[in-house]
């Protein structure tokens, strides 16, 4: 814990090579400015990074071709989301949003400078349109 009382994120950052620009990022959607602001503030309320305020939202990167860290594995894991945003890491970096490899692989925190509407709008644009999650409405045995 820091003297401010928030938890320090640094010990929970993984030491690994950043994903390349073509890596697909999975973010449950559909996101709105209000949702992004709420989620970024929740991170801000819980964590600091190197003792400094931190705003961020959680995403997962499709780091593998198969398995739980693949795109298919992540879409299946997050089947509760009827829609997902699937930007490339390069889109987020070019828009000025670094990805912190936080907690367990393949979780990342997109770092924001704050929760001002201009920055959140830039992030929403960088996330791109929400697409249907093919696992959300898939027919399952027993569902009627």
């Amino acid at each position, binding site marked *: *814990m820091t003297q401010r*009382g*928030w*938890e320090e994120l640094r010990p*929970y950052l993984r030491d690994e090579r950043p994903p390349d620009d073509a890596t697909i990022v999975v*973010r*449950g*959607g*559909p996101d709105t400015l209000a*949702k992004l602001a709420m*989620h970024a503030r*929740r*991170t801000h*309320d*819980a964590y600091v990074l190197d003792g400094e305020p931190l705003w961020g*939202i*959680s*995403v*997962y990167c499709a780091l593998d071709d198969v398995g739980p860290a693949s795109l298919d594995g992540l879409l299946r894991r*997050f*089947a*509760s*989301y*009827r829609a997902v945003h699937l930007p490339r890491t390069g889109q987020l970096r070019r828009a000025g949003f670094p990805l912190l490899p936080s*907690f*367990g692989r393949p*979780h990342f925190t997109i770092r924001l400078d704050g929760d001002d509407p201009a920055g959140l709008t830039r992030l929403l644009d960088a996330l791109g349109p929400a697409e249907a999650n093919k696992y*959300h409405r898939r027919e*399952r045995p*027993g*569902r*009627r």
Partner: protein
Amino acid sequence: MVRVDITCDLMDEDETGHVWAFLRDARDPALIQPGAIVVAGDEDAPAVAEVVDIVDKPAGRIVHLRILPGLLEDYQAVIQRAVIPA
């Protein structure tokens, strides 16, 4: 229309590997007890979850959630099949 028991981002996991939420974001905090089955997330993406534990942190009381497989509709369907009206 779905009303969740505790609002959170289902993508927010922490070092435990579980989804975390602030207890303050529960509709009725009394419902949130270890072992309780609750609806977590938001109205766009609700999920059935088990409350793993509640831990005290300086930022507030943190609830850890284990997201259970399937959609909310799956649980509704199984209850409709299983419960026989008296």
